[in-house]
C-alpha cells in the first residue's frame, strides 16, 4: 500500500493491512517457486519472511516418484515449471516433460492427444488460465472423449493477491463442475496433494485438480488415504457443519476451535471432491446439525456452496440454516492474500464470525 495514501481514502469497506516489508507476504515465489534462486545474502530479499519452513509444492517431486514406477505419467506446463515445480519432474524425467510455452489451450489439447495414446498427462498452469482460458479444451478434448488428462490449476482463488483479477480464479469451480464427465478435486495441503496425485493415476476420465499456492498450511500431517468422491470428516460436531474445500480447510478447522470454545459444537468436512459431490455427507450434515455453512475460496456463484444448496433443496431439507460463504459476486480489490482473506472473512476469525451470524 502506498504510504502517501491514508486509510481514510480507502474504498468503503476496506480495512488497512500492515505496510511492507515486515507485514508483507512473499509474492515472488509465485513465479519462482520456493527454491532459492540466485545468491542473495538475505533470505528476506525475496520474501518478507523466511521461506525455509514454508511447505513447498510437492507437485513435481511426487509426480517424478510416481513416474519412476508408472510409464504413463507425463507432465506438461505452459512456461510455469518454476512456479508449479514441474521442473522437479523435468529434472528426473526430461523426455516425459513438455513445456509448450505460453500457450495454455494448446497445452491442454496436446495433453489430450497424448492421453489418447495411452499416457496420463498432468497439464499444469495457473488456475485462471487452465480453467478459464482452457475451459473449452477441457470440455471438448478431455471430458467429452473421457481422456485421462489431469488439468492442474494452481495458485487458485485469489491466492495471487495483488497480481489481480487476471491472475485470480474465482470462477473455476463453477465452470468446471458444470462440465459432464469431469471430476473436480481440490488439494488441501501438500500431503493431500500427494494423495490426490496418487489416486488420480487410475481414476477414469478427465480431472480438474485445483491447487492452492503451495504454501497452504498443513491439515494432514501424513499422506492421507483418500477415495475420490468421498469427503473427509475432519472434526465432529453437533450444532454446525462447515463443508469446505482446498485452501479453506485449515481456516475452517481453526474457526471450529474458536466456535467450540464459544459453545458451538462444530463439524468440519473436507469436501475435496467437488464433483462428483459426496451427497451422503451433505445430507448427513443437514440431518445431524441444524446449520450448514459452506466455505470456499471462490465466487459463491455456482461453486461448492451452490452445489450443496442444490442437494439440500432437492432433498426437501427444511429447518436447517444454510449459508454459502466465499467471495461475493465481484472483482476483488488489490491486496496481499492475507489481507484479502481477512477482508472477505475467509480467515479463521472471519469464518467464525460468519458462522456466528448464521447461528444468530
Amino acid at each position, binding site marked *: 500500500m502506498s504510504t502517501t495514501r491514508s486509510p481514510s481514502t480507502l474504498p468503503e469497506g476496506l480495512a488497512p493491512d500492515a505496510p511492507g516489508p515486515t507485514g508483507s507476504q512473499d509474492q515472488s515465489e509465485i513465479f519462482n517457486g520456493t527454491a532459492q534462486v540466485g545468491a542473495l545474502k538475505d533470505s528476506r530479499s525475496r520474501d518478507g519472511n523466511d521461506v525455509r519452513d514454508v511447505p513447498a509444492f510437492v507437485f513435481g517431486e511426487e509426480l517424478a516418484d510416481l513416474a519412476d514406477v508408472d510409464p504413463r505419467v507425463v507432465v506438461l506446463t505452459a512456461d510455469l515449471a518454476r512456479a508449479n515445480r514441474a521442473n522437479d519432474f523435468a529434472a528426473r524425467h526430461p523426455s*516425459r516433460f*513438455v513445456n509448450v510455452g505460453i500457450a495454455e489451450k494448446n497445452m491442454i489439447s496436446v495433453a489430450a*492427444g497424448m492421453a489418447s495414446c495411452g*499416457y496420463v498427462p498432468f497439464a499444469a498452469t495457473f488456475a485462471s488460465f487452465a480453467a478459464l482460458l482452457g475451459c473449452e479444451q477441457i470440455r471438448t478434448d478431455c471430458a467429452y472423449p473421457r481422456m485421462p488428462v489431469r488439468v492442474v490449476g494452481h495458485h487458485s482463488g485469489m491466492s495471487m493477491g495483488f497480481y489481480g483479477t487476471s491472475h485470480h480464479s474465482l470462477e473455476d469451480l463453477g465452470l468446471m463442475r458444470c462440465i459432464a464427465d469431469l471430476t473436480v478435486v481440490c488439494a488441501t495441503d501438500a500431503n493431500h496433494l500427494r494423495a490426490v496425485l496418487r489416486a488420480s493415476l487410475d481414476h477414469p476420465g478427465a480431472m480438474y485438480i485445483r491447487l492452492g499456492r503451495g504454501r497452504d498450511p498443513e491439515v494432514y500431517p501424513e499422506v492421507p488415504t483418500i477415495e475420490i468422491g468421498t469427503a473427509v470428516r475432519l472434526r465432529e460436531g453437533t450444532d454446525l457443519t462447515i463443508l469446505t474445500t482446498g485452501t479453506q480447510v485449515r481456516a475452517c478447522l481453526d474457526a471450529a476451535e474458536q466456535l467450540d470454545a464459544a459453545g458451538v459444537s462444530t463439524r468440519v468436512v473436507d469436501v475435496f471432491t467437488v464433483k462428483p459431490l459426496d451427497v451422503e455427507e451433505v445430507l448427513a450434515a443437514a440431518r445431524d446439525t441444524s446449520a450448514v455453512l459452506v466455505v470456499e475460496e471462490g465466487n459463491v456463484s455456482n461453486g461448492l456452496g451452490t452445489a450443496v444448496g442444490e442437494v439440500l433443496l432437492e432433498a426437501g431439507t427444511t429447518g436447517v440454516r444454510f449459508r454459502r460463504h466465499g467471495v461475493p459476486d465481484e472483482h476483488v480489490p488489490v491486496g496481499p492474500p492475507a489481507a484479502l482473506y481477512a477482508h472477505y472473512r475467509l480467515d479463521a476469525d472471519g469464518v467464525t464470525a460468519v458462522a456466528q451470524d448464521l447461528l444468530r
Partner: protein
Amino acid sequence: MQRTTEAGTTEARPAAAGGLADGAAEQDQRLHEHLRDRARFIRTETVRLARIAGAGHYSSVFSAAELLSVLYYDQLRIDPGAPRAPGRDRVVLGKGHIAIGLYPVLANLGYFPPSDLDTYTRLGSPFGDHPDMKKVAGVDFSSGSLGHGLSIAAGMALAGRLSGLPYRTWAVLGDGELCEGQVWEAAMTASHYRLGRLVAVVDANQLSIDGFVSDVMAVEPVEERFAAFGWQTCRVDGHDVAALRACFRSLPDQDDGPPLLVVADTVKGRGVARMELSPDWHVGNLSGQDYDDVLAELAGGLSPSGPGGTEPRTDGAAR
C-alpha cells in the same frame, strides 16, 4: 489400405488384383482410377447421409474427397480389424465437419457394417455431424471445435516418439480453420519439438462460412507462414489423386525433423456445379429432384478438368 469392398458390392482393389504382367504405370493408372472412384463414393454417400439428417456439410466434404480417398485407400498404415492398434497411423480431423464423408470410408474399409450408417444423426446414433472417437471405430479423436486438431495431433506425435512407435499422425485442417490462434500455438510446438512424423494437410478450399477466406480473414501465404514457423511445406492440386499420392509418398518419414505441411489447393463444393465456390452450401439440404440431379451429376466422378468454376481463384486477394 487392403480392404476396399464397397457396401453391397464385391469390387476388388484393382492395383492389388493386378497381374504380374501389368506394368507399373498401368498399375498406377488403375489405382488412380480406383482412388477417383472412392472420391466419387465419398461424395455420393455424403449426399445420401445428408438426406437422412435433413442437412449436411456437403461442400466441405467435396473439397476434401480426393484427400480422404488417397489417405485412407493408399497412404495410411491402418487395420480395420485392430482399430486401436498402438502402432497405427493416426488421423485427426481438425475440420471435424467432414465426418459425414469419413464414415462411409470407415464402413467401406470394414470398421463397422455399412448398414450402421442408416442411423446417421438419428437419436442415439454413434454417427453425428462431428466424429466421436468413443462411438465410432476408426475415429482417432473426437473433433468439431476448429483449431484444436493440430494440438491433438502434436500430442499424438509426441506420444509416438515417447513410445518408440514410428507411426505418422495426420491432421486435416481447413484453410478457414487457420484463423484460430491455437493452430499457430501448435505449429510452434510441432517445430520446437521437431515432430517429423506429424503431417498437416490443409484443405485450402478457399471458403469459410461467410465467404472467401481471403475476404473474411486472409490466411495466405499459408506455405510461407508455416515455413516461418519451422515447417517443411509443399503445395499440390488437392483434386488430382495422382499428384496427392505422389506428394504424400514423397514426404520424409522420420522423427526428429521439421513437421510437414501439405497445402492442397481445392474447390469447396467440387463436383457439383451449383455448390462450387458457393457460400450457400456450407450446410445445405437437397430434396426431391435436386437430390436426384446432384446424385446424377456425381455419378460419373470428376471430369479431368472439372465442371465450370473449378479453377482456384488466383487474384491478388487469394494469394
